[in-house]
Each structure stands twice: as C-alpha cells, then as structure tokens.
C-alpha cells in the first residue's frame, strides 16, 4: 500500500495525528511522522483496519538527535504484507529527566522488550508505568544511550575506567 493511502486512512481514523511524510533512507521508502501523544491511537487504528492489519511491531528504535529523542516504529502485517515506518519525537527537558511517551504494548504486545530497553537506556517512561529496569545494575545512574551521558569512573567503589597503559590514542576512538 502506498504511503499516501496509509496517511489518508490515518487522517480519517485519528485526525491531526499525522504531521508529515518524509523520506526514509535512499530506497524511495517513507516514514510517517506522527504526534508523540497520538502514538497509541495510531497503533490502534493501524492494527484494527481490515485492509492494513498492521499487527506486528517488528522493531522500535530510539535515537537522540540534538535535544530530542526520535522514536522509529517499524510496523508490518503478518497477513497483508503491508510495511510502514512511523516516527515521533520527544523533546528532552534536561539531561537526567525522564520523558513520557504513550505505550503501545496493549495494541502490540511484542513492544514489551523494546519499550523496556528504551525506558532504561534512554530514560523514557512509557504509559503510566515507572521507568523499567533489568539491563543495568541496580543503582546505576543516568541514561547510557543519551548523548549527554558521562561514563562514571566507578560503581560502588569498583573502578571501571583507568588510564590507558600505552598513553592516549591518536583518534582511534571518540572520547567517552
């Protein structure tokens, strides 16, 4: 299904949710930008539409661009072969403050591990729940995948960064 037809369906089902259509990658594919607060309603509309039946959240990727988190939902149907890319942005208020986004796990149950990872590593609170934990050790501070993250020198008095025994490298890696 063409992206334009998809947008037209979304405009009818969730008026005002679609912000724009933008290119995704080089291959003529498109992403549909949606308002972050409408993510759950858009997910419901896409999943329940009999022509689309976008019932499978294949992937949820989060990236930080400047002062915003970019959420990319790769969605597809097991029945109709329709594939779509949805996008939403969340503005970051400060370096160590959680940001809120609606959860899509009631529509797409497979979203659980994706949301859990993004919650912990980017500091996103999905739905009404708390920030989830499970990857990082208990008591770990900060959101490691945010650009502003500063690597701690120690954790519970265990040092885990030490000077290089061969001196500084000549640009082989970006400073952590």
């Amino acid at each position, binding site marked *: 299904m063409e992206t334009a037809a998809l947008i037209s369906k979304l405009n009818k089902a969730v008026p005002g949710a679609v912000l724009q259509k933008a290119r*995704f*990658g*080089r*291959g003529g594919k498109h992403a549909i930008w949606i308002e972050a607060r409408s993510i759950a309603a858009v997910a419901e509309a896409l999943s329940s539409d009999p022509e689309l039946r976008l*019932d*499978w*959240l*294949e*992937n949820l*990727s*989060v*990236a*930080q*661009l400047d002062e915003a988190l970019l959420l*990319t939902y*790769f969605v597809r149907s*097991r029945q109709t*072969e329709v594939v779509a*890319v949805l996008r939403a942005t969340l503005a970051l208020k400060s370096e160590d403050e959680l940001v809120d986004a609606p959860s899509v796990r009631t529509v*797409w*149950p*497979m979203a*659980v*591990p*994706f949301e859990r990872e993004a919650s912990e*590593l980017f500091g996103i609170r999905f739905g009404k729940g708390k920030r989830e934990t*499970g*990857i*990082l*050790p208990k008591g770990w501070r900060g959101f*490691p*995948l945010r650009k502003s*993250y500063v690597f701690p020198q120690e954790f519970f008095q265990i040092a885990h960064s030490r000077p290089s025994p061969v001196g500084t490298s000549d640009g*082989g*890696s*970006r400073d*952590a």
Partner: protein
Amino acid sequence: MLETLRTDLTSWEIGPYHGALPGPMRMKLRIDGEIIISTDLETGFLHRGLEKAFELHPWPATVAYADHLDPEAAFFGELALCLAVEEISGLDCPPRAQAIRVLLSELSRISAHLGYIVKVGRAVGAETLIHYVLRDREKILDLFELLSGARYSLNFLRFGGVAADVTEGFIERVLEVAELLRARLKEYNDLFTFNHSFLLRTAGVGVITRELALQSGLTGPNARAAGLAFDARKAHPYIGFDKLDFEVPVGRGEAGRLGDAHDRFLVRLRELSQSLEILKDVAETVPEGEFSRMRIDRDFEVPNGESYARVESSRGLLGCHVVSDGGRFPARVQFRVPTSANLTLLPEIVRGLAIEDLPVVIASLDLCLAEADR
C-alpha cells in the same frame, strides 16, 4: 495405610550461572511438586553497552563490534551492519563478494544449527550424538579459519565487499564439506529424530502456539516450527537470495503438537538441508571479479542519512537501524534481535511444565543472551 507425597509450593532460583541455562540469566521459579507454576526472568548480566560502543568508534571498527552481538553466529551481525551502511553510502557489493557473503551466511547457519543439535543433545543426555555433531561442526570452523584466520568472530566483511578474496582451495572444500554433511544429516536423522527416547523428551513439550508466536513477535526457526513461514531471505531478499531456489521449512507437528520442542528440532534439521543445497548452488557458480569496491580506511565517512537492514540469522529476524550524521562515527546503531521475543514468551511456555523438561525446552529455544543483553 497410603503414603502420599506432600507437594508444597516451593521457590527455586536457577542462575545466573547454571549448566542448563544458555548464558547468564536468573530464573525464579515457583514450583508445585515438580510442576512449574510461574517464572520470573532476570536478564542483563551480559550487558556490555554494545550499542553505545558503536557510537564511540570509527565506522571501519564497528564491524568487529557487530561480531560480538551473537558469538555463535557472528557473521549475521556483521552482515546486517554492512548492508545498512552500504545502503546509506550508496555502495554496491560486487557479485563475487555477494557470493562469498552467501557462502558465509549459510556456513554460519549450518554451524549455529549444528551447535543447536549439540545443546538439545546435551539436554536430553544423548552424548554420542554430541560427539558426532561437534566433529562435523569443526569442519565448518576449519573453513572459517581457512578463509579469515578466525574460527568464531570472523571480522571478514567490509563496507562494499569482503576483506579478502577466498583462499586457494576454499570453494572446493566448501563443496566437499557440503557433500559430507549431506550424508551425515541422514545419519543424524536416522539415529535421533524419531528415536523413541528423544520423542519422549521432546514431543508435545514446550509448545509455542501460532497465536503466542504472533503475539510475541517471534521469528526464525522457532516461529516457523509454530507454523509462521516468515523468512527475511524470502520477504526482503538481500545478497542475491531472490535468485536462489530454496524452501522455507515449517513445523508440521509430526510427533506431538505443532510448535513443540520436537518441531523446533526438525525445522532446524530441514533448514540444514536447505542451506547445504544453497551452498552447493552458490559454490559451483562463484563469479570471477573483484571482492571489494573500495578500500575502507580509518577516515571513512558515511553520508548523513539512515537505513534499516534485515537479515535472517540462524535464530530469526535480525534488524539493524543505522543513523549517520555524516561523520567518522555512527550517530546510532540499533539492533532488533530475535532472542528478545523468545525471552518474552519463555515464562508462558514453561508454565505447567515438569521441572525435568525445563532444560530441554530452554535448549530447544536456542536463546542467545549475548544478543538479548548486548
């Protein structure tokens, strides 16, 4: 007077390190007698900050990091990353390099599936089979060594091709090994697949229903065993899989129920057979020509942009979302790994299971904690 066994509810903790587990994870079980009532999973013990590490290293160094996503089938991480970067950069891969990539892809799948047979064999106590299969997997690891110098983490792909041309005699040895394994597959099948004691341990055990597979976003051989025929090599063909003739085996519930541990084993055996066919077809027709479009130096830059590549790893759909801000370092590399879905449904399928079946079910799922925690 009748004596009855008192079966109170008990709590067990298995892990984080235990022989029955596929890697470091903790299972908190509630057990009634010998029946598992509920399970809580704790993972994250193998979190290395891998996706963050990508952002801290120049593009050419990221290939070696992609190797560490799944140590048992390292090639697929490399491939997903390279395909994504090549799409952003507009680099195409020469036909000879494509053929070498297909060979490596299927050799990796065979190696991983043979490793799977070993895991399942160990869980059911089939020691003889383990030795036979490990002996044969060595031949695949020898091929990796002959090609790249490494047996596990190959670090052999480069953006726009492969690191080197095939070594002398490699193609011939691939054909020899494919021929040998074809005969051995029949042996494994005769010895094991419908062996009475193997059926008792696997048939009807650890069933993943089609609905559960759909709900959890399951992919790969485990989903195919449950009746979902999705395979990224067919749905989103890459490196020339669209030109190859192969089938995607799905579960049939031959010995127990559709989607049980036995089906998962059988699907992998059949996939091995398909991979051997692909190997033979490709090895006989590797085109002449260059193996790489350009030499990638340490100052290699990827243009501003993004892409999402999908490959079918030995465990399922492996996605790689790459974002570049135009510099020498990636802005973001994110992986969609197949093990996450398996971990989500694990508590569901072990509920009601006898404790003795737990190691078999865990082995039959082919979990990789390294990729799930990354």
